[in-house]
Structures are given as C-alpha cells and as structure tokens.
C-alpha cells in the first residue's frame, strides 16, 4: 500500500493528465470502498480540481468543512495566526467531531450516503443539523490523540479548533444572508451582519479572522457593513480586531483575485448558471473598496484586478455563448421543447453575466456580443432549426422585447403556415 507521500508522488505525475482523466481518477477515489486517506493522491491536483469542480462523493468531513472552503489552504502555505485552516488538520478535526456526535453520526452518514457535493438540498438539511453540533464539540474538545500526524505543535490545536467552531456556529445564518442577497428582495440589513458577528470578541484572533474571511468570500457586500460597524464602535478593542480582520480579509480576497487561479476559478470555470452572480459579487466588492474611505490602501490594486475580471468575463461570455447557444443551434436538427427550454435558460444566464460584467468592462462590447448572439439565433431560424416564436423568445432574452416583437410580427400567419 502506498504511503501518503507515495500517493502525492502519483498525484504529481497525474498533473499532466487531461481533464477527463482527472475526472475519472476523482470518481475512482470517491468509491465508498476506498479510504478517505487515498485522497492524498489529489493534493497536487487541487488547483486543477478547483477549476474542474467535479462532483465529489459527500463524505462526512467534506460536508463538515464546506462552510470553511474559502479559507482552507495547503498545509505548507499555512502559518500560525493566519486567517486560514491548513488542510492537514481537517481529518483529525473531523475525527474529533465524529467521536463527539456519538450515535448521531450513524444518522448523518445514512443521510449523506450516495450523495454528491452538488446535492444542495441534502447539504442544507444535514448541514443545518451537523454544523451547530460540530461547533459545540470543537469549542470544548481536547486535541485528538493523533494530532501529531498533522506535523503541527499541540499549541496550535486550541485556537484553530475554536476558530473552526466560530465559523460553524454562524454558518446557518451566513447561508441565509447569502441567499437573501442572491434573491435581492429584502433590503440588505447591516444589523444582520452585526448579529452574525456578535460575540466575536470572545473568539480567538484566528477565529475572528477566519469568520470575517469566510463572510467576505461568501458575501463581499458585507465589507461595507463591517466598515460601518467598525466606524460606529471606533475605539473599542473589538472594533480594532474587526478592522484588522477586515483589512486582512480584503487583502486575502484581492490577492486571490490577482493570483492565477482566483478569477479563473470564479469566472472562467464557473457554471453558466452561477457565473453572473459571482461576477456581480466581485464587481460590488471592487466598487465598495473604491468608495469606502477606510479601504484606501487597497485601491491601487483595483485597476489591474478589474481589467483581469473584464477579460475573464469576456472569455466566459464567449464560451457560454458557444456551449449554451451555438452548439445546440448548429446541431442541424429542429430544436425540441427541452432544448429550447435549456437554451432559454442559458440565454438568461448569459444576460445575467453580461449585466454584471458591464460594471467592470466596456458596455458597448457586450451590446455587440449580444447582437452577435441574436444573429446566431436568427441564422438558426433561417436554417429551419428554430420556429419564429422560439426565435422571438431567444431574441427577447438576448436583445430585448423590441427586437423580439419585430421577429414575432414577421411570422407567417395561420394561413401562410405554422409560426409555432
């Protein structure tokens, strides 16, 4: 049997493999019969996995640490005091929670059996039960017996475990805030951010930093509300800690966006359905940093990030157009109901991306791209792949109701032939 270092060596050799091969290896490693430790083979591949985002088997530890994902770093990149969690401590922490759960673990394992990381409903339901319990356990449990395996000194355990607990304790409410922001109907409420951060003064500085880092990663618009909290409590120890955590969180978020992988993961490789929202969040963060007087230190970095984000958005719009519209329309077969519904959904996602991308790029460019998309749809209708009503529906999403109405009014009447 291979040792962890041997597995990592195999992983390094796999680094050159194509995407499909990597997906196959991931699927193989997710077989229930294989121990979770075999995942060490994936460590050198994690940057590629972040881009590919293959659905993974929903193991206990994976579910447990999902809320902390934005702050999990390779063990070698971690230093004590960082607002981050080294990957090497995840398994020992998971074992601690598992032991603390007692018989409840069986029900949780049963609920996630045969589920994958894209099963949002299961994640929300089981997570809602698991995360608060895990927070209570980690807040008090002593270091696990195998802590040495992490290669970290025992003194690192208490603040790290408490920091993870601080995030897990707030996960449910944080997720609700993220969803509320996504829905966008209820006015963003600074008091909700305050309530989420309440009691942070009692946490370790690491906990403070990690909670703020997770919050900024999931809800960048929170930065502005945190600034307001800092300003309204200026002078207090908690306010100073919050300000430092915010500054470090922004620094980390911007560094992530500047790095090779950051924007690519969030934009170029994101699913078409979610990419618009991701870009909107990033654009909002950049705008908030630009407008807030207390974040002046970060401003010199914004221009380059904005330009990088613009490029990534253009590339994603192009690939989205290809995968979401051009491919089905050039299949040379009349479009079915299901394909039409799928194309409409893709067109809406492209519009959501375009509306967000305009905030960081050249609006005229997106007008031209949308015009090009509408032309592709028109050509498909001309080739008999689309009916005129279906063409009008797609044109409406891409180019607006005026353009759609023009298409609709040109359709043949009942006497001339089928318009539908």
């Amino acid at each position, binding site marked *: 049997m291979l040792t962890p270092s041997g597995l990592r060596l195999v992983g390094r050799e796999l680094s050159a493999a194509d995407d499909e091969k990597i997906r196959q290896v991931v699927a193989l490693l997710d077989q229930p019969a294989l121990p979770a430790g075999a995942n060490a083979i994936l460590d050198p591949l994690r940057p590629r996995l972040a881009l590919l985002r293959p659905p993974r088997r929903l193991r206990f530890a994976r579910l447990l640490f999902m809320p902390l994902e934005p702050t999990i770093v390779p063990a070698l990149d971690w230093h004590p005091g960082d607002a981050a969690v080294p990957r090497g401590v995840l398994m020992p922490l998971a074992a601690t929670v598992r032991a603390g759960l007692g018989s409840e673990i069986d029900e949780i394992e049963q609920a996630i059996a045969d589920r994958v990381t894209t099963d949002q409903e299961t994640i929300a339901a089981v997570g809602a039960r698991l995360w608060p319990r895990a927070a209570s356990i980690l807040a008090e449990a002593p270091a696990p017996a195998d802590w040495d395996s992490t290669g970290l000194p025992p003194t690192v355990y208490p603040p790290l475990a408490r920091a993870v607990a601080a995030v897990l304790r707030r996960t449910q409410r944080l997720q609700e805030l993220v969803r509320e922001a996504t829905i966008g*109907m209820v006015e963003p409420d600074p008091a909700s951010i305050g309530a989420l951060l309440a009691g942070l003064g009692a946490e370790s500085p690491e906990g403070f930093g990690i909670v703020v880092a997770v919050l900024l990663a999931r809800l960048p618009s929170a930065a502005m509300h945190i600034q307001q909290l800092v300003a309204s409590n200026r002078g207090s120890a908690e306010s100073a800690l919050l300000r430092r955590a915010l500054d470090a969180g922004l620094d980390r978020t911007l560094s992530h966006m500047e790095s090779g992988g950051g924007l690519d993961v969030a934009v170029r490789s994101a699913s078409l359905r979610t990419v618009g929202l991701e870009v909107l969040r990033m654009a909002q963060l950049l705008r908030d940093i630009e407008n807030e007087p207390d974040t002046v230190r970060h401003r010199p970095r914004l221009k380059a990030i904005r330009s990088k984000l613009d490029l990534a958005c253009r590339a994603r719009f192009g690939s989205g157009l290809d995968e979401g519209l051009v491919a089905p329309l050039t299949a040379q077969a009349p479009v079915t109901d299901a394909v039409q519904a799928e194309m409409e959904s893709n067109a809406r996602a492209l519009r959501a991306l375009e509306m967000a991308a305009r905030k960081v790029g050249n609006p005229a460019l997106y007008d031209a791209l949308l015009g090009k998309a509408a032309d592709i749809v028109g050509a498909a209708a001309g080739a008999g792949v689309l009916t005129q009503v279906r063409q009008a529906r797609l044109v409406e999403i891409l180019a607006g109701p005026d353009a759609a109405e023009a298409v609709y009014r040109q359709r043949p009447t009942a006497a001339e032939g089928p318009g539908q």
Partner: protein
Amino acid sequence: MSISFLPPIQPYHPVTFRERGVVVPFTTPLLVGTRARPAAKGGLELIIPNPSGLPGVYVLEWRSIPRLCHPTLHDRQLSERIASVYNITPMTIREIARAVAAEGLAGEDARHAALASAGSDKRDRTITNFTLLMTLVDQVGLFRNAPPNEPNAQLRARQTVAHVAARIDRTADWVASALESMGDALAIVGVEGQPDPGRVPRIMDVLRGTCAALKAWSGPNSQEDRAAYVRMICSAAEYTLSLADECVARARALTADLAGLLREWAVDPQDIAHRATRAEWLLDGWEQICQIWRCAEDDPARIAALVEIAGLVPVIPREARDWTGTAEQIDPIMRFRRTIPLNEDWRTGARVFELIARNEHIRAATC
C-alpha cells in the same frame, strides 16, 4: 419602473368586484399583480400595486404600459388583445391569456399547459352538461317506476326535455340549448353529483393547501414579523374561502329546481351566469399567490415570497357581503403593518430574467 411618469399613489377600496378589476397574468416582474378594469371614461385602465409594498395603487390608462416599463413580448401581446375587450371578467382574461400562452410566448411549459387546460375546461363543461341533464331526468321523475336502463339514458333525456319544454312553454330545442348554456356557466363551480369538481373548487383546494403550508412553515416558534405576515395572508385567504364556499353552495343550489331555473333562464340568463361566476371573481388573484409560494424553495426565498404576497393579497370589495349575505366586517382583515423592508430595485436588477422565468412557470401552472 419609470418613476417620473407615474401618477400619485391612490387609495384602493373598491366597492364592487368590477371596480377591483381582474388580475392579468403578466410576466414582466414590474407588472405582477396588475389588474385590469373598465375606465370611467371608456376603455380600460391598469391598477398596479404600489411597488414599495405599502398601501395604495397606481391607476393608469391601459395604453400607458410601454411608458411604464419594458414589457415582455408575452405581455405586449396580452395587453394588445385585452385592450379590445369590453367585458373584463376572470374568464375573458383567462381565455385571452391562454391563447397567448398557447403560442409559446410564455415558454414551452406554458404552451403545453395552455393547450391542455383548454381541453380540461371543455371536459368540465361536458361533464357539467351531462350531470345537469341527468339531474333534470331525476327531478322530473318520468321514469321513477320504470325498470333500470329502460328506456336508455338518451331516450329518457329526450323525453324529459320534451316534457319540461311543454311545461314552461318553450320548444325542446330551446330547453336543450338552455341546459347546455347553463352547463357552460356552471362548469366553473360544478354541480351537485358531479364526480370531478370544476375549476373553482380545484383552486379552492390549492388555496387551502397553501394556507396549511404557510401555517406549518410559520409554526409556533416563528419570528414575529413572519408570523404576522402569515396571519394576515391566511386570514384573508380563509375569509375569501368561506365567502367562496358560500358562493359555490348558492350557485349549486340553483340547480335544486332545474325546471324553475329554466324559467328564470328564459327571462334573465345573464343574472344566472353571473351568479355562477361569483366564486371565481372572489378567488381572482389567489391562484398566482399560491404559485408564488410554491416557487419558493427555501427559507430565505419563502420570506421573500411572503413579502411579495403581502402586497398582492386581493382586497375584498363590500359587494361580497351582498353576494353571500355575510354581516362580517371585511376591512379589518386587510389592515396590516408591513415590517420587512423591501429592496425596491429587486424586480429590475440582475434577477429580472430569473423573475420572468418564474412568472412564466406560474403561467404554466395557472393556465
């Protein structure tokens, strides 16, 4: 919404259902909940709920829709076709909307649903017509002592119609045709003995289910603001349901003496047809509300749905008291203090396409 163009917000206390207007199933997010009614000076006018969710409405000329917002192609066709209609009722709006949806302008699901629901309405009418005829045969009782199935149902019906025609001094053809027209009018609520209820009882079941779901979600430990919204919505829904129950019962009671009803039909068919549709007028707007709730998949979405629904709860005009004989005060049910603040841009921002898709989904579910 083009704020500069909007007139002042007006109070909205319709006395009659005609004045309340009929909900038009627009898919443009800014137009959700908009009602159509005849204008005093002729033509139609729009009643648009206050977008802030606060009390009051905007009342605008029908043709001003394009100045208000950029309606979807579906809504342009819908408003264009409604503009030429004089008699605005829930049924006329439904039929026009169904024709627009059947073209595919609200998407594939709505197209299929529109085509299917036209068939389901036709089936309702056929069943009601048949049940009415069989009820008439039973009530007249020409074959009470005859052996079973002799003569057959068709012959029994023909002889009964001829018998009743002679009694009310009309031809058999007139009676047959009147029964068919009465069946068409009553199909929406169904008649006693009908195996499959009509459209209105089906909507009432959906509304009862929605109330139960709202209460179960709110639960005893719900935050006060959520609980207050649920209380207001469910009170209005339950009161509407009780009134609708009464209207359905009264409409069905019309058929207790079919020969007498045929005499009345000969004098004033409109009055009977109108009484048959009262429950539909009462429930107008609630079907959309039920679907908004159904579309909300998790707690944050349900809270948003709750706030949206609170702005759409149909006002019950005082005319309902005349229809049902109730002495209960209607106004207090509608008094409600909004506590969850709305983000006023939510229907025009990045989610606009998602909201249109949701509204099209609702179109499919309510065709």
